[in-house]
C-alpha cells in the first residue's frame, strides 16, 4: 500500500520533470547580436598576421549548390600564401540557414551571399567597408559606380558584389565577353546548304529561311525554343532594352516593359511565327528544358533557340550520339535596332560580420582578392601552371574552362569573394568556339545601366505585390497573344493585357519606380 503510494509520487515527479523538459528550457533566451559598441567592434581587430602565421576565418556560403566546400587546392593555397588567411568553409544546406543564423546571432567571420545582401547590409550585423577601409586599408580603392550600387540608406556600403562590370571597363577589355547566359539561335548547316545557303543577315531573311524549311521539310519543326529562352533573342533584335518583366529608360524616366512601344512589334512578330507554322503551340507548355534539346539533337528541328553556346553544346551531343549533321550559330545581331541593356548589379557579395574575430585581416584579404593579381588568380588559376597572359590582353588557358570537374577540383573561379565581370568574362574567350563569336557580336550592342537594376521592390511591400500580380498576368496573357488566330486578335489581346495591368495598379508601380530611380541616380553623380 505504502509502496503503491510512493510509486505514484515518484511516477508523478518523473512525469512532471520529463514533460517540462520536453517543452524546452524556455528560459527566455533570445539571440543577442553583438552590439556595435562591443569590444569586438571597437578594438578594431588584432594585429596584422606576421609572415608565416596563418589566420583561420570562418566563411559561410549562402548557396546550397556551391561546388567547392573546402579551402583546398592550388588556388586556395596560393591565396593563403599571399594573404596569411585561410578559410573554414560552410556551405548552406538550404536558403533558411542564413536567416536562422542572423536571427540567433550565430554568424561566422565572413558571409558570402546573393539573396541576403539587403538584410546583411546593416550596421548591427556587419562592418561597413567604409570604416574598415579608412581604418585598415586606406589604399584599397573601389570605383564610384560600385560604391553607388551598394550604398545603403545610412550612407555606408557593406559589400561589393562580384560579376559586375561598368560600361567603361567592358569597353576597355576587348576579350571580356560575358557569360553563357545570353540568348542565341543555332541552325542546321546541312539543311542550309541544301537550301542553297540563303543569306541570313536580317530577321526577314531568317523568317524566309524558316518558310523554305517548312515547305521542303514538312515533317520538321522549323524553330524549337528552350522553355526559358523563348523571347530573349527576338526582344534584343527589336531593341526593346528590357525583358517582359523589367524596366526601360527613356528621356530620364522609366517605364514598365510591356508599355515599351516596340513591344507590340515584337508580339506581332512572334504571333506571325506561330500563324505561319514555324513554331509549335506546345512549345509554350514544355515542362522541362531537355525536350527542345532532343528535337534539335534528334534531327527533328532546323533552328534551336537557347543560349550563345547552343551550337557548341548541340554539336557535342550529336557527336556522342553518332549523328551526321551539325549546327552553327546565327549572327547575334540581325537588325539595326538590336540592343541589349545590362542592368545587372552582380552576383554575390562578401560581408565582414560583427562577429568577425579579425576585421583587419578580413578587409585586407578582400583587398588582395580585388587586386589585379588576386582577380586573375581566383578566376583563371595559378599563372604559369593554369594559364599564361597573352599580350593581346587575354589569358591563354592550359585547360578547358568548360571542364567543370577540372575547374571545381582545382578551386578555380569559385573563390571569387571579390571579383569583377571583366575578369570573369575572359573565361568565355575561347577562340575556337562559336559561342565566342556570338558573345563578341552581342557585346557590340550591349549598354550598361546598373541604375535600372537598383529599382527593386522590397519584400512584403505594396509595390512587390503589384509587380508580382502583373508579372503573373503577363505570363498567362502573352501566350494568348503568341497563339492568336490573326494579327488583329493578337493586337486586341496585347491591348487587353495592358488594360489588365492598369487595373492591377501599373501606374502606381511606375510612379514608385520613377521616384526610386531618381533617388538611386543621384548616387552615381
Amino acid at each position: 500500500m505504502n509502496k503503491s503510494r510512493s510509486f505514484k509520487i515518484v511516477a508523478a515527479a518523473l512525469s512532471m520533470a520529463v514533460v517540462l523538459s520536453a517543452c524546452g528550457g524556455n528560459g527566455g533566451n533570445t539571440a543577442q547580436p553583438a552590439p556595435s559598441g562591443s569590444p569586438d567592434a571597437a578594438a578594431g581587430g588584432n594585429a596584422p598576421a606576421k609572415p608565416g602565421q596563418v589566420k583561420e576565418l570562418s566563411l559561410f556560403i549562402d548557396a546550397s549548390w556551391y561546388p567547392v566546400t573546402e579551402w583546398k587546392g592550388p588556388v586556395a593555397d596560393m591565396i593563403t600564401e599571399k594573404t596569411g588567411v585561410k578559410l573554414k568553409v560552410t556551405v548552406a544546406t538550404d536558403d533558411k540557414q542564413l536567416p536562422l543564423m542572423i536571427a540567433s546571432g550565430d554568424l561566422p567571420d565572413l558571409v558570402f551571399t546573393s539573396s541576403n545582401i539587403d538584410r546583411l547590409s546593416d550596421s548591427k550585423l556587419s562592418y561597413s567597408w567604409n570604416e574598415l577601409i579608412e581604418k585598415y586599408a586606406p589604399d584599397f580603392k573601389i570605383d564610384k559606380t560600385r560604391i553607388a550600387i551598394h550604398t545603403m540608406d545610412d550612407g555606408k556600403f557593406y559589400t561589393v558584389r562580384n560579376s559586375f562590370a561598368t560600361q567603361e571597363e567592358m569597353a576597355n577589355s576587348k576579350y571580356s565577353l560575358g557569360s553563357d547566359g545570353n540568348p542565341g539561335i543555332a541552325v542546321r548547316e546541312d539543311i542550309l546548304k541544301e537550301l542553297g545557303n540563303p543569306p541570313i543577315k536580317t530577321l526577314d531573311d531568317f523568317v524566309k529561311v524558316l518558310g523554305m524549311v517548312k515547305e521542303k521539310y514538312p515533317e520538321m519543326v522549323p524553330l524549337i525554343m528552350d522553355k526559358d529562352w523563348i523571347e530573349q533573342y527576338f526582344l534584343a533584335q527589336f531593341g526593346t532594352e528590357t525583358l517582359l518583366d523589367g524596366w526601360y529608360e527613356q528621356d530620364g524616366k522609366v517605364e514598365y516593359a510591356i508599355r515599351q512601344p516596340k513591344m507590340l512589334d515584337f508580339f506581332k512578330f512572334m504571333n506571325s511565327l506561330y500563324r505561319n507554322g514555324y513554331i509549335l503551340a506546345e512549345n509554350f507548355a514544355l515542362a522541362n528544358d531537355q525536350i527542345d534539346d532532343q528535337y534539335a539533337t534528334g534531327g527533328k528541328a532546323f533552328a534551336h533557340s537557347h543560349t550563345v553556346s547552343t551550337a557548341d553544346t548541340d554539336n557535342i551531343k550529336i557527336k556522342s550520339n553518332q549523328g551526321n549533321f551539325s549546327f552553327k550559330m546565327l549572327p547575334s545581331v540581325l537588325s539595326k535596332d538590336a540592343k541589349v541593356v545590362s542592368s545587372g548589379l552582380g552576383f554575390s557579395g562578401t560581408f565582414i560580420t560583427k562577429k568577425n574575430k579579425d576585421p583587419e585581416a578580413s578587409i585586407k584579404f578582400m583587398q588582395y582578392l580585388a587586386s589585379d593579381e588576386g582577380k586573375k588568380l581566383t578566376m583563371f588559376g595559378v599563372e604559369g601552371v593554369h594559364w599564361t597572359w597573352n599580350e593581346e590582353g587575354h589569358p591563354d588557358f592550359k585547360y578547358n574552362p568548360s571542364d567543370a570537374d577540372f575547374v571545381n577540383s582545382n578551386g578555380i573561379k569559385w573563390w571569387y569573394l571579390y571579383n569583377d565581370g571583366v575578369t570573369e568574362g575572359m573565361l568565355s574567350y575561347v577562340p575556337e568556339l562559336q559561342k565566342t563569336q556570338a558573345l563578341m557580336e552581342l557585346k557590340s550592342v550591349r549598354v550598361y545601366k546598373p541604375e535600372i537594376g537598383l529599382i527593386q521592390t522590397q519584400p512584403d511591400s505594396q509595390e512587390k505585390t503589384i509587380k508580382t500580380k502583373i508579372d503573373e498576368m503577363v505570363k498567362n496573357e502573352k501566350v494568348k497573344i503568341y497563339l492568336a488566330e490573326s494579327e488583329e486578335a493578337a493586337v486586341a489581346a496585347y491591348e487587353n493585357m495592358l488594360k489588365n495591368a492598369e487595373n492591377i495598379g501599373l501606374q502606381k508601380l511606375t510612379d514608385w519606380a520613377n521616384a526610386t530611380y531618381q533617388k538611386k541616380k543621384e548616387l552615381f553623380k
Partner: protein
Amino acid sequence: MLKSQRQKDFVFDSVIYVVLFIIMLTMLYPFYYVLIASFNKGSDSLLGGVYLWPRNFTLENYRVFMDDPKWVKAFLVSVLRTVSGTLLGLLLTSIVAYGLSHRDLLFSKVYFTVIVFAMYFSGGLIPYYVVLRSLGLLNSFAVYIIPSMLSTFFLLIAISFFREIPAELKESAHIDGAGELTIFFRIILPVSTPVLATMALFMGVGQWNSWLDSAYFVQSEELRTLAFRMMEVINKSNSPMDSLAVANSASAGVTSFSLQVTSMVVSIVPIICVYPFLQKYFVHGIMLGSVKG
C-alpha cells in the same frame, strides 16, 4: 444456390484482387522506376523511354556517388545515431508512458494537457535553435539524440497500450515482492513488443532520414550524417554550370537526375531491409485502441 453464391464470391474477390493489384503497382512503380534509373546511364535517361529495365546499364552513378571518402564516416554516424537514438528514445518514452499510464496518477490531467499542447504547438526553428545553444547541444553528437528522445505522439500511443495491460499482472507481481522497476523491465516491457517495435520503426526511420539537424545544428564535418551528405549531392547537382560544361559532363554519362535517383536508392535500401522484420508488430501496434472491448 451455393454454387451461384460461390461464383458471386469468386467474381467479387477477383475484382478486389485486380483493384488491389493496380493500387499496388501505382505504389511500387515509382520505387522501381527510381531503381532502374539509378542503373541507367544518366545522359540516356534524359532521352526518356526508360520504363521497364535499364536501357544502358551502368554503375557509374553509384561510383560517382560513393567517390567521396566522407561517405563511410557519414554512414557510421547515421548508424550510430539511429541505433542509439532509437534505443534511448524507446527507453525514455516507455518509462514516461508507463508512469503516465496509471489512472490514479496525481495531476494527470495537467500532464496530458501539457503533452497535447506540446504536440500541436512548437516555438519554431529559431527558438528551438536558441534552446539547443543554451543547453550546449550545438555541434555535438548529443543534438541528434537528446531532442528526439521523447516524442509526444509515441508517448500517447504507448500510454494507451500500457493501459490495455491487465492490472492483475502488476498486482500479482507486487504480491510476489517485485518492485516497480522489476515489474516494468521484466513484465511490462516483454509483453509490449508490438508497441515497442512500432515505435522503434518510426523512430529509426526518423533518425535515419533526418538531415536538418545535421545541417543546422552541427558544423563539424566529422558529425555529418548520410542523409545530409545526400542532400549535399542533390544540392551540388543543381550547380548552374554553363551548357557546355553540362554537355561535356553529360557525355560522361552522369547527370543531376541520375545522381538524385541514386541517392534515393541508397537512402531507401536500409529501411526496406529492416521493414519486413518489424511489419507484423507495426500493424498490431498502430491499431492499438482502435477497437474497444
